[in-house]
C-alpha cells in the first residue's frame, strides 16, 4: 500500500480505546473486526468482491458475541 498500515492502525487503535467496553473482551473483538475490515478493503482494491457481505458477516459474529455475553 502507498500508505503506511502502521500509521493508520495507530490512529484506529487510539480511537478504539474510546469505545465503551460493552462486555468483557468487547474492545478486543472490535479490534479484530477492524483488522478484518481493513483486510477486506485491501483485497477489494486488488480484486473486487462483495465486501459489504463480508463485513456484515463479521459484524454479525461480534454482535452475537456481545449478545451472548449480555445474556449469560
Amino acid at each position, binding site marked *: 500500500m502507498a500508505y503506511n498500515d502502521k500509521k493508520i492502525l495507530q*490512529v484506529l487503535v487510539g480511537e478504539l480505546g474510546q469505545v465503551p467496553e460493552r462486555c468483557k473482551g468487547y474492545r478486543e473483538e472490535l479490534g479484530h473486526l*477492524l483488522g478484518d475490515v481493513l483486510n477486506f478493503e*485491501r483485497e477489494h482494491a486488488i*480484486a473486487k468482491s462483495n465486501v*459489504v457481505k463480508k463485513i456484515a458477516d463479521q459484524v454479525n459474529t461480534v*454482535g452475537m458475541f456481545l449478545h451472548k455475553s449480555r445474556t449469560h
Partner: protein
Amino acid sequence: MKLLRAHIENFRLLKDVTFEFSTDKDRNLTVIRAANESGKTTLLTALQWGLFGDEALPDRGRSFRLSPIDISSGDKVSVTTSVEVDCEIPTRTGLRTYRLIRFVTETVRGGQWERGAANVNLFHLTPNGAAPVDNPEAHIRPHLPRELREVFFTDGDRALSFIEGSKGDQMKRVEGAIRSLLGLTVVEDALSHMRKVSTELNQKVKKDSGNREELQTVSDRLAELEEQRPGLEEQVRKAREARLKLEDLEEEADRKLSDALRKGNREELEKQRQAAIRGRQSAEKDAAQAARDHANLFRSELLGKQLLAGPFAKAKAVLDGLHKQGKIPNQTIPVLEDRLNQPICICGESLDPNDAGGQRRRAHIQHLIEDSRNSDALQEKVTALYYGAQELLRPVEGRTWSDEYSDVFERRQRANTRCREFGEQEAAIEAKIAALPDVDIQQLRTTRDHYRCQAKDAQSKEIRLNSQLDAMLRDIKLAEADREKLLQHDEKGMKIGAELEVAHDLQQVLTNALETMKTRELKQVSDRMNALFLEMIGADPAQRSIITRAAITPEFRIVVFGRFDHPLDPSQDLNGASRRALTIAFILALTKVSEVEAPNVIDTPLGMTSGYVKRAIVQLASQESSQLILFLTHDEIKGCEDILDERVGKICTFTNPALYPKILAHDPGTNDTGIVLCDCDHHRHCQVCELRKDAKPREAVSALGA
C-alpha cells in the same frame, strides 16, 4: 516502496539504458547527472509511463510519440518501446521484489506514427525466478496511487502545481496527495461499506418487526434518513466546491480588474490627457507673451538710454552748460514781446507809445526782437532738445534693462519648459491609452461584483446545507436510540440490537479516525513542512525574515505568511527559489509524516536556486527521504559536491552525443542521438561525458535548435 533498477528501450532519446537506484539507508541519494538536452526529463517521463501508463505522458500521450525521433525513414518501421522497473514492496509477509514491464509498439513512416495498445506485465522476482502476477494494474495501483504520481515523481516546475493555478485546483491536488499518502481513502471506503451494513441491518429490523408498528415507524424513518444522507452529503460537497470555484473566479476577476486599473483606466487617462492639453495650451500662451515681451524689450527706450548713456551724459552736460549760461531756454523774444504789452520797461522807464521816450524804447525792443529772430535757429533747436530730452537724458535709476531682460528671459524659459513637460505628459498618456487593452473597467468591476455576489450566495447555501446535514445526523442519532430501546423487547430484537451496536461503534471509530487524520496528522504535515521550508530558505521568524511561516489549512491549501502574520500568495509573492523550496518541503513533509517508504524522484529541483537555499534543499531532501533520486545538471551540482560525497549511493552520467562539438569536448564518433550512459560522478569525467570548458550557452542552444 523502493525503486531498484530501470531498463529503458526506445523511449525517445533513451534507446537502451539500464541503471540502478540506491537502496542504502545511509546513502539514500541516487543522482543522474546530465547536461541540458541529455535525457533527464525523458527519463522522468519514461519512469512514470512505465509505472502509470499513458496518463503520465504529456497530453495523455495523444500527440506524444514514444519511439526515437530519428527513426523516420520513408519505409514503414515498427519500433517497440519498453520500460522495465524493478521495485521492492513491503507486504505483511515481508519485502517482495517485483518487475513491472510496460511495452508498446509504434509503427513509424516518415514523420507519421501510430501506436498500438500498451501491454503490462508484472513479475514477482524470487531467487527461483520470475513468477507472473495476474491483474498487474490492480496489484500495483494500491502501492502507486495515481494521486501520488506528482508526489513521487516531479520536476521543479510541476511541483509548483501544489501552490499555483486556481485555488480549487491547488486544494484538490494537495488534498489528493494527503488523502492517498495518509491512507484516508481506505478508511473512507471502510466507513462507506459499514454504513451499508447498518442500512442492511435496519432493513432486517423492519422486516422482522411484524406487527410492532412503533418499531416499523422508527425503522422506516431511519431508512429514509439514511437514504437521504449520501445525497445531502454530496450536496454539501458540491456546494463547497461551487463556493470555492466562485471564490476563485471572483479572485481572478479582481486580479484582472487590478491589472487593468494598474495599466490605467481609459476614462481616467482621458481626463489626465485633457488636463495636460489645457496645461500645454496655457503654457504656450505664456510663452508667446514672453516672446513678445522679449522682442519689445529690444525696442524699449530703456535699452536706448542704456546703450547711449555715455553720449547722453555728454550731451546733457553741454545742454546744462548752455542753460546755465542762459542761452537756453531762448526766452528773449517772449520776454521782449511781453514787455511791449506793458506800459513800463523792466528798467522802470516808460513804454508808452504816445510818449517819445516810450516810442524810442519800444522801437529798440522791437529791434531786439527782430535781431533775436534772425540770430540763431540752432539755439531754438537746442532749447527744444534741452526741454524735450529731459526724461531721456536723466540717468537710469532702479531696474535696468538687463534686469528686465533677465525677467523676461526666465519667464520665457519657464513657459517653454512647461510647454515641453505638458507635451511630454500628453504624449505619454496617449501612449498609455494606445497600449491599453480593449478592456472595459466598468464591465470588469461588474463581473467581479457578480462573482462576489454569487460566492456569497454559494456560501449561504453551503451553510444552509451543513445545518440540514447536522440536523439530519441528530435525527438519525435520536431514531437509533429509539430503535435500540424498542429492540430490547425480545430475544431476536436484542440480537439485531447487538449487531447494530457493533456496526455503530465501528462507524464511530472510523469516523473519529478520519477526523484525527484530517486534523492531527494534517497539522503534523503542516508543521513539518513549515520547519523544512523555513530551514531551506534560511528564514528565521525570530529575526527579521520576510517570510515567517507556511501552513496547510484544514481546506488543504498551502499558505505562507509574512511579517505581522500578513498572508502571502505563494504563487505571486514568493521568488522562484522559495516556491520550489515550499513545494519540495510539502512533498518531503507528507512522505515523512505518513511514514511511507516511497521514492522521491525530482528532475532539476535546484533550478532558480543557488548558495544556501540550494545546499539546504539537497541536504534536507536527502535527510527526509527514504529514497531520493535527483536528476541534476552539472551547474546544479556545483556547490553541493560535499553533500553528494556524503549522501550519494549511486550516480551515473547521461550524455547526448548530439551535443558535440558545441558542448561536448570529444567527438563521440557516432551520429546516433541515443543517450550514452557512463559511471562518472561529480568529481570525474571521461572521453564520453567531458564537457567543453568554453562552451557558450547561446551557441549551444542555437546548435541544438539547428
